[in-house]
């Protein structure tokens, strides 16, 4: 096969929030290209709804230290405290920078950026919710994505749209390029680069019920893994409490931030029992578990696997009055703050959320783990923090780790901007002083062979069969609650599926042009790798912390597990080690987590 070669100082893979932020900064000091399997404006950042967290203190007293502490506590103390400090300190300036780039935030009467409540964000003295989520209605992510793309056009950033990265190329162990397929004509391109940044987002499609786009198949972590590098904290995958039942699409936490409450079949506001102070605005892991427990106890609506999210003005106002608050809402206010949620409810369920409660269930949402990096978004290869020269990661695909065992709402968007910017600056600096590592002979040889194997595969198992079986077993056994026998079953199933993927795959489309049959099959291989790593990481963490709840080890165990999980690729397998220490530099000692 003919292979085209390009040379850039910096190559960014993925054009969501982190990728475009990195590209904007890198391109100011280095010749930069962004390659993305989607048109940039299709990226999943655009579906983020409720807000971006920053202690602007436009409405309530707030401090970056409070934001940092909430992030650490929300992460169940697995959060690296130096990362939480960076996030919370730089969030303020990052949000201001977005506004100065033109982002149309909602406004307060004085013209400043509007803020609202979100789960786990508190006044550290009163423990009450604080208004910290800067937002543009319930389409904050859309505005961020559009604004960044607009600025990339303004600054003439080079994009390779609909180019799918399929291999990280190394020469004698040194990172030197990326192979990508041009989806339009199927040709393989090699991008020779000094610095490469993965910003490919998450991998929620490992699970049956997910808020994630079809494109979120974990290509980034899989490529890094296949290049012989470790992945961190993969057992921590967040289930967002409020996915629309039954489709799983996201219903923002801002519904609860605006006063919505969760109600079971008996009409009880059950979060009063699980989180007496902060109630429905507890951390996502806490709320998702509470919903599961209510459903298990037979208190799902009509005995089914969902509960209600009630944001009808009369309900909101009743609880506001009960809490002694002066604020009252009406249907027009709800519509103005949650227009897209209203549209989703109307389109997919035919209901009006100001008149009927919304049926919701937890949905696979966000990977706290991923490609391990330091605070400058440099990828590391050991628990001790050895830097891989020229390799970077930012956004959901990276594990800094700023989200620890459970991410707070609004912190994903903050992460994209803060660490995307850091990656961009760091790569521009690196490219100035580093030389190109030469490409190896036949740099795309191995990946071309793998692509051709898939293209010509003529077994009996279509990719969707393997994918659906994987998604079901991950949902049944590696979701909100886990225990050893279920994890073993998941591991056995995933390994059996991997062997069918190798030996019995059936792809229909043998062509070159826009061959999504082939690319979906290739993506499935990435997902199978990550499913195995996730399950093994979960088996080896014999405690419950944040998004990882073991029924057989229900307590947090700080003596043995206040440490990050590292999964290392070894010949013929995966080695799990707990050899990356948690940074405690802000001095927040692990405490019991009460909301």
């Amino acid at each position, binding site marked *: 096969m003919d292979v085209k070669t390009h040379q850039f100082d910096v190559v960014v893979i993925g054009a969501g929030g982190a990728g475009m932020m990195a590209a904007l900064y890198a391109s100011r000091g280095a010749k930069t290209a962004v390659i993305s399997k989607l048109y940039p404006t299709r990226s999943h950042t655009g579906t983020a709804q409720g807000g971006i967290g920053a202690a602007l203190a436009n409405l309530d007293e707030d401090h970056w230290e409070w934001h940092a502490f909430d992030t650490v506590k929300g992460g169940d103390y697995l959060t690296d405290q130096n990362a939480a400090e960076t996030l919370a300190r730089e969030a303020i300036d990052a949000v*201001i920078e977005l506004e100065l780039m*033109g982002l149309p935030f*909602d406004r307060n009467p004085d013209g*400043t950026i509007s803020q609202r409540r979100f789960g786990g964000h508190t006044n550290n003295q009163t423990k009450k919710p604080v208004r910290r989520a800067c937002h543009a209605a319930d389409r904050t992510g859309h505005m961020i994505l*559009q604004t960044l793309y607009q600025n990339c056009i303004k600054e003439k950033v080079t994009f390779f749209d609909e180019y799918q990265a399929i291999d990280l190329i190394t020469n004698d162990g040194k990172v030197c390029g990326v192979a990508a397929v041009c989806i339009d004509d199927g040709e393989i391109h090699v991008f020779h680069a000094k610095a490469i940044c993965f910003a490919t987002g998450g991998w929620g499609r490992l699970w049956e019920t997910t808020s994630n*786009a079809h494109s979120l198949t974990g290509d980034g972590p899989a490529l890094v893994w296949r290049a012989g590098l470790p992945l961190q904290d993969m057992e921590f995958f967040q289930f967002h409490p409020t996915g629309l039942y039954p489709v799983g*699409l996201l219903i923002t936490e801002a519904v609860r931030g605006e006063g919505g409450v969760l109600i079971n079949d008996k009409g009880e506001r059950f979060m009063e029992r699980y989180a007496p102070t902060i109630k429905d605005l507890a951390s996502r892991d806490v709320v998702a578990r509470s919903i599961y427990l209510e459903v298990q106890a037979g208190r799902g609506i009509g005995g089914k696997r969902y509960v209600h999210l009630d944001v009808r003005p009369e309900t909101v106002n009743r609880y506001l009055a009960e809490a002694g608050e002066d604020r009252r809402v009406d249907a027009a206010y709800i519509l103005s703050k949650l227009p897209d949620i209203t549209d989703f409810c109307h389109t*997919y369920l035919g209901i009006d959320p100001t008149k009927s409660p919304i049926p919701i269930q937890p949905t696979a949402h966000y990977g706290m783990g991923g490609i391990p990096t330091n605070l400058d978004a440099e990828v590391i290869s050991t628990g001790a923090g050895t830097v891989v020269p020229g390799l970077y990661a930012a956004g959901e695909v990276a594990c800094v780790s700023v989200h620890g065992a459970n991410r707070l709402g609004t912190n994903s968007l903050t992460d994209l901007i803060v660490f995307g910017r850091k990656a961009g600056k760091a790569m521009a600096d690196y490219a100035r002083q580093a030389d190109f590592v030469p490409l190896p002979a036949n740099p795309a040889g191995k990946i071309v062979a793998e692509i051709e194997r898939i293209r010509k595969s003529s077994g009996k198992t279509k990719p969707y069969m393997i994918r659906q079986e994987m998604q079901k077993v991950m949902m049944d056994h590696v979701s909100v609650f886990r225990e050893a026998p279920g994890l073993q079953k998941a591991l056995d199933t995933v390994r059996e599926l991997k062997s069918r993927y190798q030996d019995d795959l059936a792809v229909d*489309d043998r062509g070159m*042009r826009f061959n999504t049959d082939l690319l979906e099959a290739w993506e499935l291989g990435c997902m199978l790798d990550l499913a195995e790593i996730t399950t093994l990481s979960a088996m080896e963490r014999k405690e419950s912390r944040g998004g990882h709840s073991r029924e057989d080890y229900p307590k947090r165990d700080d003596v043995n597990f206040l440490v990050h999980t590292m999964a290392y690729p070894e010949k013929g397998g995966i080695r799990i080690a707990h050899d990356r220490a948690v940074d405690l530099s802000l001095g927040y000692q692990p405490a019991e987590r009460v909301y």
Partner: protein
Amino acid sequence: MKVKFRIRRFNPEVDKKPYWGEYTLDNVEPTDRILELLHRVKWEQDGTLTLRRSCAHGVCGSDAVRINGVNKLACKVLVKTLDLKDGGQVQVEPILGLPVVKDLVVDFEPFFDHYRAVMPYFMPATPRPGDGRERRQSPEDRARFDDTTKCILCACCTTSCPSFWASGEYVGPAAIVNAHRFIFDSRDGATQERLNILSEESGVWRCRTIFNCTPACPREIEVTRAIGEVKLAIQRNGR
């Protein structure tokens, strides 16, 4: 229920001309999205069927297609809204006016070229505030351009426009919507440049106020109104 799909197929690698592929699906639920059913055709029956999709809930703008002759996002159309009887038929084609790459996939480059041509980015009217904080904007000024900030660049409007079908040189409704978003933003200072671009031959005057664009928009943007406001702004600016 049973549903028949009639899908416009064309792969220039192997086909001399486009044709209709016919597929029957059983066990279709009224709440199924058309996107899910196109996936079922692709996954269960014919892997060569090619389409774009990503978020599957009407936000990313990938899956604009013509369903029964009307531009829609496939992920936002439920079977029950099509008023089908058991065994009824759904017709799916690529959107019109952009070259077909393969099956339901069209070439978006001309569409994005038009978008990029209208300066779709913020050009501040004032320097950065000296206090290091955000530029202030009143809620009323923010509301002035709210509608056009919702655009997801799916091309449903532009590819429903007869003026665009007649000439691909016309920048089209989506590009004008994105210019409007900045023209009416009180913080922006490049209104005159954008109005100059849009008063050229390929600009707003190709719009004949046919209104196809407005019902085509899956985000319910009042597209024709936005175009009208830009036309008015050009006239008031004396061009």
